[in-house]
């Protein structure tokens, strides 16, 4: 009986230590960028060890093209409150100087994603974003349609924002200040 308990304990310790190590490695690869934004998945090839690769895989991600993609993530609005699907937000910023970029709403468990992204888009790219003459853009987040640039959290209760910058080469930082996220109102 003792031997069975010890074997089961070994299995549990192995599994739990692996999942914890993967989560910790994933957390250590997230670096503060500016304000509420954090750099994610931007590790150089040399830094990608089996734990980090496992963390990407558990998220269902393919590794972004080396040196080309820069991914940033925000979990809160600019006041530090968690992003809530029942609230309306205004994202404001200056268009990054990259060849392509995108702001997307991502759920922790994407069960709330809409089937028809054209009816309620949950992401917008630089091609579709209407910027003002000075390069500034404003993007509304709301469940219901809003005039101008608009994306919807769909049925998600809470969500995070992922900003993807696609650079020409690693030397180009494309660094515009990451946008601010202001909470307007909640239902």
């Amino acid at each position, binding site marked *: 009986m003792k031997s069975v308990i010890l074997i089961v*304990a070994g299995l549990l310790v192995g*599994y739990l230590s692996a999942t914890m190590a993967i989560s910790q490695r994933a957390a250590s690869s997230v670096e503060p960028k500016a304000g509420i934004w954090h750099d994610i998945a931007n590790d150089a090839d040399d830094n990608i060890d089996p734990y980090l690769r496992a963390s990407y895989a558990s998220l269902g991600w393919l590794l972004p093209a080396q040196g080309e993609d820069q991914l940033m993530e925000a979990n809160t609005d600019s006041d530090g409150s968690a992003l809530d699907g029942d609230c309306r937000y205004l994202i404001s910023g200056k268009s990054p100087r990259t060849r392509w970029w995108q702001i997307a709403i991502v759920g922790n468990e994407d069960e709330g994603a809409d089937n028809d992204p054209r009816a309620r888009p949950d992401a917008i790219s630089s091609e579709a974003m209407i910027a003002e003459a000075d390069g500034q853009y404003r993007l509304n987040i709301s469940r219901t349609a809003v005039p101008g640039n608009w994306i919807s959290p769909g049925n998600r209760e809470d969500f995070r924002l992922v900003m993807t910058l696609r650079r020409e080469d690693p030397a180009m930082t494309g660094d515009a200040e990451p946008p601010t996220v202001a909470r307007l109102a909640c239902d």
Partner: protein
Amino acid sequence: MRLKFKLPVFWISVALVIAVIVHLSYVLFTPSRAMDAKFDRTVAKSGINALTVLSPAEARSLTGLSAAGSIYAACPYNLRNGDLTINATFAARPWTLSVYGISGARLFSVNDKQAGVDTVTLEVNRGGNIWDVLTDHAAPEIGDGWSIEVKERRGIAVLWMADTDPVVSERLRSELARSKCSVAPRPEPVVAPEVVPEVEPPDETVPQPEPDDEAVEG
């Protein structure tokens, strides 16, 4: 008494070994398992060594990211029967061609700015020594920029192109759909014919030794 002391030590050692094995297996096989699932889903859509343009939902399932403003195509490949050739045709827009191994490793990536052209041909060859082939984890070797030697037999090539408004989106998708990926059987190694050295006649121009005057006289 002695046996009672030894038994827990033995089983504790066994438990520790099991813990290490489970830990390493979970870490090492998680990316391969996830990539295998992506590979199987893509094969179900396109078939093996064939390229297909993905719907936004399929692209999201493959990359894990939103496909808004993007057009994705994928080619799940298996180099068992030969080398892969990817003939990618993009519109004059931002694009990226990436190749991933079945372990989830990113093997190669090129974009429109780096390529300078919108039609590219990339050869993916199986290479490496037997140890690399067995372990499947060695880094790829980039040849002349348009051919790579990979150690992993299976993987997925992913083509991404920036989308624009819905009016021209369909045209862009059909343009990307003209891209192809195919596996060509490796040519049989040519056995060089055995060269039989010809016996050359003695060179008449070689100066013959002068007859020894004294010997002649003698």
